[in-house]
């Protein structure tokens, strides 16, 4: 694998995670538990779609085949998507969505913090911009974790269950392969082992504050780096890509 191919893959991982997470969150629009929160979740979704758009645009340039951000978002099949498994998990109840978002926010927060120092100027600039957005997302979901964890017995039970069910997808966040190895050497990508340590501390601390239990170590799912997803992604893409696939080569 050469550097260009690796960088393309790396961009897809970043962009797809934001895109799929944004797509999931956008399903809430119009159905939130209170009007104000409906608006807040949509703001997060908009930030994520924006991140995905910018990075996919860059990915297209890196790939050098003339693909636009829309080509990459709407015309790749499931096995070519590189988003983390956590992002594609269905919304479930509000506790599940918040827990998923929180775990992802902590991840993105330390990820972008580190990637700001990338030698790739585009990635570094995009990270700096995204970090501001993610800092707010994390503040928002952290507060909600506290409210739900330390709210009523029902909310506590719901959010604990969500964390437990999502836990097996958190290992996948930090898996590294030859793409990471190559780009790390070049100073382009980041060491996910370091991010993992920070992520674990942060999550453990907040769960404790929210009176929640850290799940016991379970067997972790893996596969997103190689495009091996859960069954959910196919349905999500079928919906997301249907117009572009039904009417190819037109402008919208």
């Amino acid at each position: 694998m050469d550097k260009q191919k690796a960088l393309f893959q790396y961009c897809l991982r970043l962009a797809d995670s934001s895109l799929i997470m944004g797509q999931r969150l956008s399903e809430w629009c119009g159905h939130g538990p209170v009007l104000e929160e409906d608006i807040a979740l949509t703001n997060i979704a908009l930030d994520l779609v924006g991140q995905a758009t910018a990075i996919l645009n860059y990915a297209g340039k890196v790939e050098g085949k003339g693909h636009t951000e829309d080509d990459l978002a709407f015309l790749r099949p499931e096995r070519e998507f590189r988003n983390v498994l956590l992002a594609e998990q269905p919304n479930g109840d509000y506790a599940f969505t918040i827990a998923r978002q929180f775990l992802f926010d902590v991840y993105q927060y330390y990820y972008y913090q580190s990637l700001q120092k990338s030698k790739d100027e585009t990635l570094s600039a995009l990270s700096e911009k995204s970090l501001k957005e993610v800092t707010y997302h994390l503040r928002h979901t952290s507060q909600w974790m506290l409210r739900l964890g330390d709210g009523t017995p029902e909310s506590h039970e719901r959010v604990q269950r969500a964390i437990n069910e999502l836990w097996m997808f958190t290992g996948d966040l930090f898996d590294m392969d030859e793409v990471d190895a190559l780009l790390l050497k070049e100073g382009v990508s980041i060491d996910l082992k370091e991010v993992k340590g920070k992520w674990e501390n942060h999550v453990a601390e907040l769960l404790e504050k929210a009176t929640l239990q850290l799940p016991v170590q379970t067997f972790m799912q893996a596969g997103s780096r190689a495009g091996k997803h859960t069954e959910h992604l196919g349905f999500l893409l079928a919906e997301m890509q249907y117009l572009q696939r039904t009417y190819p080569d037109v402008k919208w």
Partner: protein
Amino acid sequence: MEKDTQGTLWEVFVQANPGIPHKHVGSLHASDEEMALQNARDVYTRRKEGISIWVVEAKNIKASSPEDIGSFFEPANDKVYRHPTFYKVPDGVKHL
């Protein structure tokens, strides 16, 4: 079952630019102050309307009543000497 709630009512004040006062922009519902602040950010500054936000629970605002207009504000009507235009200045004198 207890009565359903949408949280309490908060009033939102936004400062649009440095150096100018915060201005009342509207209300929202929230159950705690951090939620009120975040909701204000998400609802009232989506179009770059602000650089600073105040939120205050509506019940903590003491407001004057329309019946107070006479006793509160009309006594100021005849105190014209508080305004610079009240004073005569000879023609030709500047910087006053």
